[in-house]
């Protein structure tokens, strides 16, 4: 049963299996294990980012395609929910329409970009996606009459998903309200999408993608249409990223350029994929969990360290909590050189 659910792609390392199990249990029972607004918020963020990073890994780790437009697709899903909820009124139908429209639009745009750039040279894709994504981000913040501009949009989601909806008293320390339902909507959506991605990469389609990553010339010679496979992977990846964006929008009940479209999120995704391990879906789980936890708690540690070295030259500035990206950047470069397979690859090697 479990083997079937995981599409036959088992962790293949005891340590990894234990860690993944712990992450799964922690996320599945987060509202009961770690009650509190902030920790549940962190858990929901981890769920969303696992899907987002896994979908990016489908492109980067399996397809060997570098894209810088993943936040754009993420944002399209988020804005899809936001716009439909604003314009169609509060309701499940608006949420569903928004999610589906966002995913379809993202896939269509990915198809167009792929058509232009993947046809010629795969590295064009990296540059073109960067250009398109920044143009879209600028456009979104400028078209304030539709998208709310820099301020973003706040909207209503179905009442059953808001804290105002209560269906009982607290249970094991968690309040039984709509927020709990919203968390489980995000969690199950993320789990479903992750399993679908796992299915995709372990299908014949995924195998061909890996072959193309290793040697596109030979794959073409064997008779696979490289461009079609690469474009297909891009579209699937974009659609899943958009759905992750919809989940995030449902959870936050707010979208804005900074929360769903900024380039910082793109950098976060890159870090998560590389540190977790490219070319393994489980790497996404490890990377997203590690990085989101680090973002939320590392800054506190760095603040302490910065105060500890006060008085020395430059060091306090280097350890300033706002400079955590510096250290993650160093970690990123080092991990590409020394652990190109990331945490997951390391754990699997030790078996």
């Amino acid at each position, binding site marked *: 049963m479990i083997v079937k659910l995981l599409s036959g792609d088992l962790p293949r390392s005891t340590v990894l299996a234990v860690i993944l199990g712990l992450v799964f249990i922690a996320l599945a029972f987060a509202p009961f294990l770690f009650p509190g607004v902030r920790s549940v918020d962190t858990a929901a963020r981890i769920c969303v980012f696992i899907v987002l990073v896994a979908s990016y890994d489908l492109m*980067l780790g399996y397809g*060997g395609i*570098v894209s810088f437009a993943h936040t754009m697709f993420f944002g399209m899903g988020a804005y899809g929910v936001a716009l439909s909820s604003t314009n169609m009124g509060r309701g499940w139908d608006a949420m569903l329409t928004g999610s589906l429209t966002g995913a379809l639009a993202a896939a269509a745009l990915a198809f167009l970009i792929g058509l*232009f*750039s993947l*046809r*010629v*040279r*795969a*590295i*064009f894709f*990296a*540059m*073109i996606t*960067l*250009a*398109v994504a*920044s*143009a879209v981000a*600028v*456009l979104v913040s*400028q*078209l304030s009459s539709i998208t709310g501009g820099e301020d973003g949009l706040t909207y209503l989601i179905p009442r059953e998903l808001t804290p105002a909806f209560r269906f009982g008293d607290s249970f094991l320390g968690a309040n039984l309200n709509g927020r709990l339902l919203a968390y489980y909507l995000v969690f199950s959506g993320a789990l479903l999408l992750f399993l679908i991605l796992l299915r995709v990469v372990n299908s014949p389609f995924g195998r061909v993608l890996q072959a193309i990553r290793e040697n596109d010339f030979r794959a073409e010679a064997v008779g696979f249409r490289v461009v079609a496979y690469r474009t297909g992977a891009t579209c699937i990846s974009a659609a899943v990223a958009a759905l992750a964006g919809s989940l995030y929008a449902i959870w936050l009940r707010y979208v804005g350029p900074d929360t769903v479209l900024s*380039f910082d999120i793109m*950098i976060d995704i*890159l870090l998560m994929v*590389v540190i977790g391990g490219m070319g393994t879906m489980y790497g996404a789980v490890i990377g997203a969990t590690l990085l989101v936890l680090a973002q939320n708690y590392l800054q506190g540690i760095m603040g302490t360290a910065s105060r500890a070295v006060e008085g020395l030259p*430059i060091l306090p*500035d*280097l350890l*300033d909590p*706002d*400079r955590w*990206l*510096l250290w*993650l*950047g*160093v970690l*990123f*470069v080092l991990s*590409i*050189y020394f652990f*190109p397979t990331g945490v997951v690859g390391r754990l699997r090697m030790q078996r």
Partner: protein
Amino acid sequence: MTHAPEHAPRMAQAALRDRLAPLIPFALVPLLVVAGLIAIPSTSSWLTLTVSGLAMGMMIFIMASGMTLVFGLMDVINFGHGVFISVGAFIGITVLLMLGHMTQAPSLLLNLTAMLVAVIAAMLATGALGWAFERVIVKPVYGAHLKQILVTMGGLIVVEQLIIVLWGPEEIFLTRPEALKGAVTFWGAAVEKYRLVAVGLGLVLFLAMRHVLRHTKVGLIVRAGVENGEMVEALGYRLRLVFVGVFIAGSALAGLGGVLWGLYQEVITAHMGQQIMVLIFIVVIIGGLGSVEGCFIGALLVGLMQNYVAFLEPKLALISNIGLMVAILMWRPQGMIPVVKAK
């Protein structure tokens, strides 16, 4: 026994169409300028916009040329190129601020000397940084595009954060040197003096670069290396050294571009390089990776397009450049003047 087919060499000239085809890209800039003249109602604003478009294009060209050569020569795609722009701007502007007494004086000579000192300082610093970047970041990942993109992106993040550590997170506002402030008036159109300087400087640099590439031995080796690196190495040239030299020169040019861009915008931030990189990528792609001429034409097109559209429909400025890129890639999928043969 079969006879060899008859194909005696003919001396006929290629058709006019075939001979003109390589020249089409050069006609695009004048065409765009004429299109601007038609679309923009007032001639004086057209002139102002054209000059500022050309100035912007020249600055983008200075920044992008290094990147396109590095790619052409060694098949290295440097996503961290933008960081040299930021570093150049910060060093150059810091020097300019230190030379305050020279930039505040109303003498053009003193102002230009101060600018020259700032530019030299910036170019030295970014050249050295480029050398280090090549050594530490790029060298271990030759031949692997995927890793190059990721690693240079990581380098960009680290250096950008280091800028913030050294100069603080706030943006720095500055004023141009005294003699370069204000505008001169031609036929009723106000043209900022600084933009004229930028146009002149860009043109001089382009011609100098063309001269080096076409008429010197180093240029010959570089062009041959772009065409067929293995053959050049087989002839006994150490292409690796040439490449490091080009990388350093390209970084230094990016630093120069950074100083010019900082003075143009009158504000610098650590992220400025990353923002300009978007335009640089568009320029490099539509020009054809590895081609300096293509890069020049592409930069002018992007600069003019950006300024015309920003005047006509401000919200579409960045989108218009994407549109330009799409149009050119539909016409010539490898860019306007493709140099690198399907690497």
